């Protein structure tokens, strides 16, 4: 055991979930409803996403079945926060999504993770508000996540500092930022995003680099560090965010994989939203 907290971005497993037809009309959204989701297109997109994780990157993918009663269930990230061998089952901010946790809990248990429940009825937390940098957590206080939820997260992951960041615009903290590598924060260039970044830097004992991209939504990408592949980055396509894609394309050390997200984004789904990544060490 080389040490705790080593190996940021090392993953062996991914949990994903199918898209129910109800997503089209019933999924929660901040965008105007006129923008219609093309279900079959969305499903194709999602298949491609899952294929990248499983086939291309070699993760063991656990695919949970879609549930028509849970229109947002494809966005598994919100239902659980996994770090090391501990999984916190969240109490999502939107009440309609709470039942998403049930199947998630089962899947995480099957992976032998230590399950921590968020039972407090005053607590809410969406995984989309949780940015883990490898050294500490930032939790966005948003429409979906409150102080109490953040406290419970802090208690579940005691090794790490947990700082709160107000999210004034956008749905989640990770609607405008994510990790692009060890110590590298990818951040959107909007004012609220930059302000949030300022707060994060103020709160932190650690030094980070930042990669600013023109589009906030494009700042949501997925970083992994995989054996035989090194730094891997799943990011937006140039069709979707041409300017931001250019920025990513300049990254020299990463294996860059553009992943289309045209449809899910209409219901606030970003790249990180659609999977829960897990590092399951081989049992000693």
């Amino acid at each position, binding site marked *: *055991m080389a*040490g*705790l*907290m080593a190996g940021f971005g090392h993953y062996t497993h991914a949990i994903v979930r199918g898209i129910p037809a109800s997503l089209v009309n019933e999924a929660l959204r901040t965008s105007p409803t006129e923008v219609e989701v093309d279900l079959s297109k969305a499903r194709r997109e999602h298949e491609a996403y899952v294929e990248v994780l499983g086939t291309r990157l070699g993760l063991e993918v656990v695919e949970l079945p879609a549930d028509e009663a849970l229109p947002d269930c494809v966005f598994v990230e919100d239902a659980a926060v996994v770090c*090391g*061998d*501990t999984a916190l089952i969240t109490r999502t901010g939107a009440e309609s999504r709470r039942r998403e946790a049930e199947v998630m809990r089962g899947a995480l248990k099957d992976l032998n993770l*230590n399950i921590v429940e968020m039972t*407090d009825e005053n607590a809410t937390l969406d995984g989309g508000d949780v940015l883990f940098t490898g*050294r*500490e957590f930032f*939790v966005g206080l948003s429409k979906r996540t409150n*102080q*109490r939820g*953040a*406290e*419970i997260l*802090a*208690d579940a*992951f*005691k*090794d*790490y*500092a*947990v*700082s*709160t960041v*107000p999210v*004034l615009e956008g749905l989640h903290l990770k609607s405008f930022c994510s990790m692009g590598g060890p110590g*590298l*924060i990818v951040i959107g*260039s*909007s*004012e609220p995003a*930059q*302000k949030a*970044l*300022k*707060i994060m*830097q*103020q*709160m*932190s*004992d650690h*030094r*980070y*680099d*930042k*990669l*600013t991209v*023109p589009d906030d939504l494009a700042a949501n990408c997925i970083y992994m560090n995989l054996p035989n592949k090194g730094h891997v980055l799943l990011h937006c396509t140039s069709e979707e965010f041409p*300017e931001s894609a250019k*920025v*990513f*394309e*300049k*990254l*020299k050390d990463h294996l860059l994989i553009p992943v289309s997200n045209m449809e899910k984004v209409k219901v606030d789904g970003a790249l990180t939203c659609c999977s829960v990544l897990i590092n399951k060490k081989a049992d*000693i």
Partner: protein
Amino acid sequence: MTTEPGEPQEAQPKEAESFPEAAAHSTPKQGGEGTPPRSQAKSSLTEDSGSHLSSSGRIARSPARTLSFRTMQARVTLLDGSLFTCTVEKRARGVQLFEKVCEHINLLERDYFSLSFRDADNNKNWLDPVKEIKKQVRGIPWNFSFNVKFYPPDPAQLSEDITRYFLCLQLRQDIVSGRLPCSFATHTVLGSYTIQSELGDYDPDECGADYVSELCFAPNQTKEMEEKIMELHRTHRGMTPAEADLHFLENVKKLSMYGVDLHHARDSEGVAIMLGVCSSGLLVYRDRLRINRFSWPKILKISYKRNNFYIKIRPGEFDQFESIIGFKLLNHRAAKRLWKVCVEHHSFFRLLSPEETPKKLLSLGSKFRYSGRTQIQSRRASAQISRPAPHFPRCISKRNLLSRSLDGDMGTGLYGASKAIAVSDLITTVTPERLMEERRAEPVEEVLVMQERMEDEEEVEEEEEDEEEEEEEEERKGVEEEKIDTEVSQQSPPTPQKQETKTELTDTAVEGELTNTESDQDEDLKTQDTLGSPEEEQKPQSTISALRRSFLEEGAGGGGGGEGGLTEWEKRLASSPLRRVDDSPMIEPLELEEPKPTFDEMSPELTALLKSAREQKTFREHNLLKTSEKVEKVFLLTEPCDEDQPMVEQPQEVPVMRKTLTYEVPGSRVDSDPPAGLLLSSQTFTAETSNTSTTTHITKTLKGGISETRIEKRIVISGDTEIDHDQALAEALSEARRQHPELSVTLKSQD
């Protein structure tokens, strides 16, 4: 967890074992310092071992034993849980006991460690090395703990394995007590290194099925955890104890609460928070969440007044003004403890050297200063260590030894063992201190006054100073209305016509206890640069939420207005210094808004001193004529007597030598001078030796073209009967003469 701190009662059985060893060390080789004869030491030890409850204080007071009258027995709980007993002179300073302990445990890298004691309210206090022990531990037995005070951020940089070993022992205590929270996985990893360090390789023959259960690793240790620890232990085969310790430390140092000293407080809105002092600055927690952080470079000034603790924050990128943030502590003493810990951590981790250089000229800083070496100095000294690595036993693993040091310390309530984290838990987990205080807080005034009285001499002095400072503040305010050009002291004597508002008002909100400050001139100049209206400046952003808001608001004007056809992004591209012609990505370091520490910040006191020296020189170089020099009267104050010696009712002298130097700029008398004179600068420094405390107050004023430097020295002699006051006074006088050869110092003494 309601386990009591590791008090001697719990350690009693062990004491018998360690006794001979302790006795052997209680009469150190260097008998030259007036250590008592061996027989005497033995006899008091014997008595002590005969009756545990007889307080050493009583022994010392016993009139029959004339020799033990001057010695005390101190008991120090070491990090391995054993008890070290030794005899020290009653008037010994903290450092003397500390050195004895370090010799006993063979420790050379001492600067990270210190002795602590519990006061009557069970609060943990650090024994000040430069002050007499008896003045710090009044009314309580001389029981101490040997502890880590400054947790090195990178333990691998320590020179000796033995130092790392002691650090490990401290951290194991911290973990078991819940002060240093960590996850299950971390408990198992750390536990496995502990086992490897103490027991060596896993040996199926020697190790029983539950050999791990005999040790305590975590606040609530489970069978599952122990099994995991055993599993991991087997993987460490071949690892030496020193390596295991290093692995332990490399992991533990990453924990977010490593080396964070927590203090209960409330923000200005009354919300319960925790303030955490650490190597990098001050952290603010609400419940378990970090809600703010002030790195040392961001903090311009730390101060406390009554039960309030203040920090003055450097203005941010878009802020125009410094802000002062206030926190409420439980009481005056808690505020002072926090302040001291801040001063010490700042000095240790940020400064190149403590403010020791000024000693020779003028004694700088407030009454309390960090007196030890800084981390940088300590590292330098450690590099000189050339002894062969000492052998030392690591066999502490008696049954659950670690659990003895369970320590109901601050923060246990918050970061304690409890798995349940209902809000009510957090609120009702009250440390003894809080209980005491809440009871005490109700009837207010009288009780508090009592308490003040009971406080040690230092604080009594402080009260006096408070008054002085308040007077001074009033003076200053008066002066401020006069409008002052603060550039005066920098360059040539000013022409009084050119006057600007002196914006020093922020200072008056704060008590003058400012080790961590730059000279007043600096701040004045800075605030003048920004040219704010005094009203704004006076409004301190005293709440965290206000500060938070300001973070959110800042920059609102910055990126808003779209200039020309450029998008925000294009502007960013254009202005980025890292923009390159080639296609490299735009990874930029996240600027921490922390200016590189200047020399001023690294040693503000020294800078202040240099500046003051420079100024004095400047006055001379400008051929100012010394027009007058007078030494004013001296008066006497009495000090409360040492409670240990009720016989000695002799009042203590407080001579004040008031030397007034008046300089005159030749031919520069201007009639339009403000009558009250311009206050150019004002500085107060204090130095302490074992029995005197010298407060130097220097004011420079400008009256009608005459620059007047007034140096006022107050020397408090706080010694015992043995002290020859006349001699001490004479010494102080000769010292003053040495320091200011240009002045003639006279002393009028009033009997």
